[in-house]
């Protein structure tokens, strides 16, 4: 039985991963009205890409780099150019459904071409545990949390402090005005997709050692990301971070104190409660009534 402290820390660790995935999801929605239902599978795939490179004989560190680059190419650039761009003129809904089909295609492809069995995946965080305030805390959790936090802070700095980041925010909030002001909106949108691909690749790297690489792991991860984004506040990156961390901790506590069988039901219940009582999310702003 882990200590409460460890539960919270490991909850924050998975929460940081959920946050990364939720941020990418929110960014795609903000900049290009893309609801990516395959986001969970996007997190599942990079690990398999890296495993494939390892199987081809490369050392792990190289596999990470190649896998990440492949992810950016496939899940960022190819995804945008081959699926999103042609579909956007049909509207939000057909694109959303197309991503659902994409999730099926990705899942079944991995199952067919790689394996239906769960594969072990090496961790980049050290193993063992350390004692904090008298309670044992796993280094894995700390490592994951640290990496996740660093990524989130790095992304935030990019968005707030660099000109590209600010341009991206402008393109996300009001593309028409941004274009007038001279922001290269199309390039910024592509940048969002690339960032999303990088985020999911990092998330994959951090989460797969814990839950093993399986073709079906996209389902739970994706769902956690969607719930995190909505619970936090669908229109804001800040919401994705808060939502992700909250879901991560809640999920862990639920597994320990509520039945393990129904642990997945707790975030779902939270989603329903938020939609009922605070649809703009924990940190979102409510939108003006349009009709």
């Amino acid at each position: 039985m882990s200590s409460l402290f460890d539960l919270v820390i490991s909850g924050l660790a998975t929460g940081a991963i959920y946050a990364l995935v939720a941020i990418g999801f929110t960014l795609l929605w903000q900049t290009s009205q893309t609801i990516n239902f395959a986001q969970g599978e996007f997190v599942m795939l990079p690990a398999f890409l890296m495993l494939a490179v390892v199987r081809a004989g490369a050392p792990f560190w190289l596999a990470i780099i190649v896998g990440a680059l492949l992810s950016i190419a496939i899940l960022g650039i190819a995804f945008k150019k081959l699926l999103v761009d042609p579909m956007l003129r049909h509207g939000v809904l057909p694109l959303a459904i197309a991503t659902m089909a994409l999730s099926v295609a990705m899942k079944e492809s991995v199952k067919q071409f790689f394996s239906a069995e769960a594969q072990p995946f090496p961790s980049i965080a050290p193993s063992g545990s350390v004692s904090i305030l008298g309670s044992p805390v796993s280094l894995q959790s700390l490592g994951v949390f640290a990496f996740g936090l660093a990524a989130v802070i790095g992304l935030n700095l990019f968005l707030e402090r660099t000109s590209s980041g600010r341009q991206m925010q402008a393109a996300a909030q009001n593309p028409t005005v941004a274009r007038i002001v001279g922001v290269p909106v199309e390039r910024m949108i592509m940048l969002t997709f690339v960032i999303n691909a990088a985020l999911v690749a990092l998330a994959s790297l951090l989460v797969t050692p814990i839950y093993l690489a399986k073709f079906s792991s996209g389902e739970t991860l994706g769902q956690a990301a969607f719930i995190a984004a909505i619970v936090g506040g669908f229109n804001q990156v800040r919401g994705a971070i808060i939502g992700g961390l909250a879901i991560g901790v809640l999920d862990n506590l639920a597994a320990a104190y509520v039945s393990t069988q129904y642990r997945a039901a707790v975030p779902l219940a939270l989603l329903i409660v938020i939609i009922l009582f605070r649809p703009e999310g924990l940190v979102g702003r409510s939108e003006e009534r349009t009709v």
Partner: protein
Amino acid sequence: MTRARRLLAIAAGAAVVAALVFVPLSLGRYGLYILSLWSVMSIAAIGLNLTLGYAGQVSLAQGAFVGIGAYAAAIMTVDGLPLSLAVATAVALCFVVGWLLGYPALRVQHHYLAFVTLAFSTLAFLVFRNEEWLTNGVYGISGVPRPKVFGLSTTQPLPFYYLCLFTLGVVTLAFWRLVRSPWGRAFMALRENPMRALSLGVDTRRYTLMAFAIGSALGGLAGALYAPLAEFVDPTSFTLSLSLNLLMMVIVGGSGYFFGPYLGAMTAVLLPEWLRFAQGYYLIVYAVVVMALLTYSPTGILGILDRYLRDRSAKAASALRAAAGAGLPDETAS
């Protein structure tokens, strides 16, 4: 539609019905099972087509409703209750659950229903798997009996197939009536121009909710037939995958078209059986086809057909307009 066209359509329809009734007489056990499965899936797809194609809402819970219907039927009939009662329960239960799910979700923004139904799908699976006292958990419920219809046993594949076909026929007629009624008109208004519909007094929220609830109820009906068909229900049959498959069926057939679901169910149930050698890859190919279809023709196979026919009759229509405009103070050019 011209006289000749109409007669042709009726003749084609009659031929299809005749084929569905007489061809199975020469099919074996397995062929009959597949055809029965097709008719059951068509019912679920018709329900989803109402939600998606007519009211424009994405539901990722249709598979869960099929599951609820299946478990309701299995639990009740194994306990000796008649299937008709189980069907009524399944339909009513799924309608109510659909209403309860949709009510908060549609109050907010439209794409929220997709997420809520996604969450519900997982929740339903968890209940199927965990509540062993009710559902027998992972072991499932076996030995689901086939009903007696007017004293005739349907234990054999052929009679049970006719029961499925008959139910599909009833659903078809009822759905046809619905689409032609003021409700059907309101649904189409929702799909085409919700803003204008609102200004005409159409309570868009209520109609959308109705469409979703009715669609879910049809899923329950399909499930209630699925249980005696397979004679076994277990949680793994009713995961998110089923919902996604049903969604893809509706898209491929043509969402918003009356005959879309039948066509879509055919491609998802019948084709993979004929292409048995490609089983593992079939789903991948299917998903890719769905993505391609959505890119080039979001309205599926029937949409492509419709567009072709419409292009041909567009010439006829403009000729009609020109001729009509000759004697009246109307503009002849847009």
